[in-house]
Structures are given as C-alpha cells and as structure tokens.
C-alpha cells in the first residue's frame, strides 16, 4: 500500500477508532519524553552538526 493510500485509509476511519490511535500516539510521545530519548537524540544531533560545521 502506498503512503498516500495509507493516509486515505487512516483518514476514513471512524472518529472512535481515530481517538484510540490518538491515545496510543499520545502514550508513545509521553513514554519517549519520560525516557529522555528525545533529549538525547536532539543532543546527539546538535553535537554531530557542530562537529561537521567545524570539520
């Protein structure tokens, strides 16, 4: 299935089904935020960018 078809399929779900997906997305975002992974990856990206701009 193409990305566009997948988006259409997701958009056509009922609101109840979409709310369930939103809950999963929200919980995943909160788990990522709590684990510090996002901060770490942002920090790593910054270091990498600094390194490449110096090099």
């Amino acid at each position, binding site marked *: 299935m193409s990305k566009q078809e997948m*988006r*259409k399929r*997701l*958009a056509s*779900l*009922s*609101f*109840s089904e*979409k*709310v369930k*997906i*939103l*809950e999963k*997305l*929200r919980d*995943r*975002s*909160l788990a990522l935020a709590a684990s510090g992974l996002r901060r770490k990856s942002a920090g790593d990206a910054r270091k990498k960018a600094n390194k490449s701009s110096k090099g």
Partner: protein
Amino acid sequence: MQAGGVIEKYAIGGAVGATLYLEPAATLDVDIFVTVPTIPGSLLLSLAPLYDYLKARGGTVKDEHIVVGGWPVQFLPTRNELEREAVAESVATEVEGVITWVMSPEHLVAVALTTGRSKDHIRILQFIEQDAVDGNRLRSILDRHELTQKWKQFEIKYLEGINE
C-alpha cells in the same frame, strides 16, 4: 455539562478536532472551545463551575489542563466571533456511542490561521492536501471574519506553485 448548565455549548478544536477529517496525528492534549454562561450581574466569565463539575467526577487539575479520562483537556472560552461561530456550527459525531461536537473543517482551518503557529500552518496544509475543506465555505468564513488578507499571505508563503 450542558445539561448541568455549566457550559452552553462546546466544540473540540485543535489537533484532536482535525482528526475527525484527517489521519490521526500525535498530540498531547485536547482543546475544547466552550461558551460559558456569564456570571449574573457581571461581564466576567468563569471556568470555576466547569472545573468544580469535572473535579467532582474524578478530573484532576494539572497546570492549565484538567485531566479527564487520561487526556489533559484545555477548556478555552470563545474569545471572538469566529470562535463563537465555530462552536455554534460544530458538527455532531459519535465517540463510543456518545454524541460529541467537533468544529467543521473550514472553521478548524480559519481558527488555525488566526493562531498562526508553525503546527497550525502544517495542519492547514494537511486539510488542503487531503482535500478535506470546502473552498467556497472556507472563503465565506474568511471574508466574514476579515481573514482574507491573512489567507492571501498564507497562500503566497505556502501554496504558490503547489499546482504547478
């Protein structure tokens, strides 16, 4: 809450509202626009009765949100004619058997245009890309609320050349 006289009418806006028409996108909270009754003898609006109502039913206050059913909810009293119209003309849908009011796609776009953050612009583009707005209805709302100029600026910035 409506039956209890705590609010007059409400409509879900923001990312959760947009989800009725688009693919679901990650968001951490729910924006609910409400028209609340004025305090008798005063021009002030108070959300205290609304918070008291929800706290009595297990809601917990966290910063500017009240957490209901696992969702941090922000109640936003309508601030202008556009938001009042968006609430008045909201669309009824069902979530697990409960009638729920959500802003129309055109009002979601108009409100996002006035809010004007990057994430609001991204959402407007999603509505356009997914052909989820009625162009005539949107233009009429933009005209009525003097947002045509702002829309033109948005078009120049984001939509020029999109059909080339």
